[in-house]
């Protein structure tokens, strides 16, 4: 397994600041390695979805989760020896379960792990939380489709589906 940590750090930074919507939300990279990726979004008054409670809009967490899921796929592709320059991808579907409201005035972290990669599809699970991944705000199950040619040695990637 080849894992280019430098490339990953670069991609992570690009995902955090180089994407207009991520920059607008001040999404920052927490970590990115072969096992997964984590990003965080700070609480802001203009992102509140329920003025009675001051809780951030679910849509902000949706965006954070979609974004970090995408980054975790990049991590998995690189960890499997693929080149991140040679593929594009699109979210197929995203299912989000909300366990509880996010705490007002608190940063929300999302941790994503791509647990299965095929030639055409990536399957991802993610969790959003403030302090403890075991006390989640929301959990996600997502599938991404690769839209461009993806150079990947077969063994580490698994069978095509």
């Amino acid at each position, binding site marked *: 397994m080849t894992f280019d940590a430098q490339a990953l750090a670069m991609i992570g930074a690009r995902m955090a600041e180089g994407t207009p919507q991520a920059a607008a939300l001040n999404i920052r990279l927490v970590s990115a390695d072969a096992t997964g990726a984590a990003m965080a979004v700070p609480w802001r008054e203009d992102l509140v979805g329920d003025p009675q409670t001051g809780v951030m809009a679910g849509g902000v967490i949706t965006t954070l989760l*979609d974004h970090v899921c995408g980054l975790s796929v990049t991590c998995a592709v690189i960890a499997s020896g693929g080149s991140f320059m040679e593929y594009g991808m699109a979210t197929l579907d995203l299912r989000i379960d909300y366990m509880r409201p996010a705490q007002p005035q608190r940063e929300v972290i999302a941790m994503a792990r791509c647990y299965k990669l095929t030639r055409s599809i990536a399957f991802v699970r993610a969790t959003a939380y403030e302090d403890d991944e075991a006390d989640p705000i929301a959990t996600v199950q997502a599938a991404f489709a690769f839209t461009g040619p993806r150079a990947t040695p077969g063994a580490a990637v698994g069978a095509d589906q």
Partner: protein
Amino acid sequence: MTEATTREERLAAMLAAVPYFKFLGMTAHVAGDEMTAVLPFAPHLVGNVLIPALHGGVIGAFLEMTALCQLAVREPLRRQPKTIDVTIEYLRPGRAQMTYARADVRKVGRRIANVHVEAWQDHRASPVAALRGHFLLSVPEVDAS
């Protein structure tokens, strides 16, 4: 959340009260018993600068907020419903242009509402994304305190 009685007033009250609508630049209007949500394109909504395409999270957020608007339009609510779960299907890239959405409240039970939402750009028959979600409604007996 409001004592307003007409659909238009309930929608206007919600749009004015929730800061996140302004962040997205989203609006909605009621025509008869039908509500349409509108998301004008803005550069900060972009997720992929190469296409350019709206961020998938923004599309999901737009669909979810449309569902919440539709629930507010449907009847006066003591509190904003809480999202229990949403399933978002991405059907086409959201291009850098105006996006519309309409929600269909499929069922309202005593505590839970099931809502389907579809978003489109040029043609309603070619949706860019769809959402199915469950929303927890406030229960008067519990909230009375």
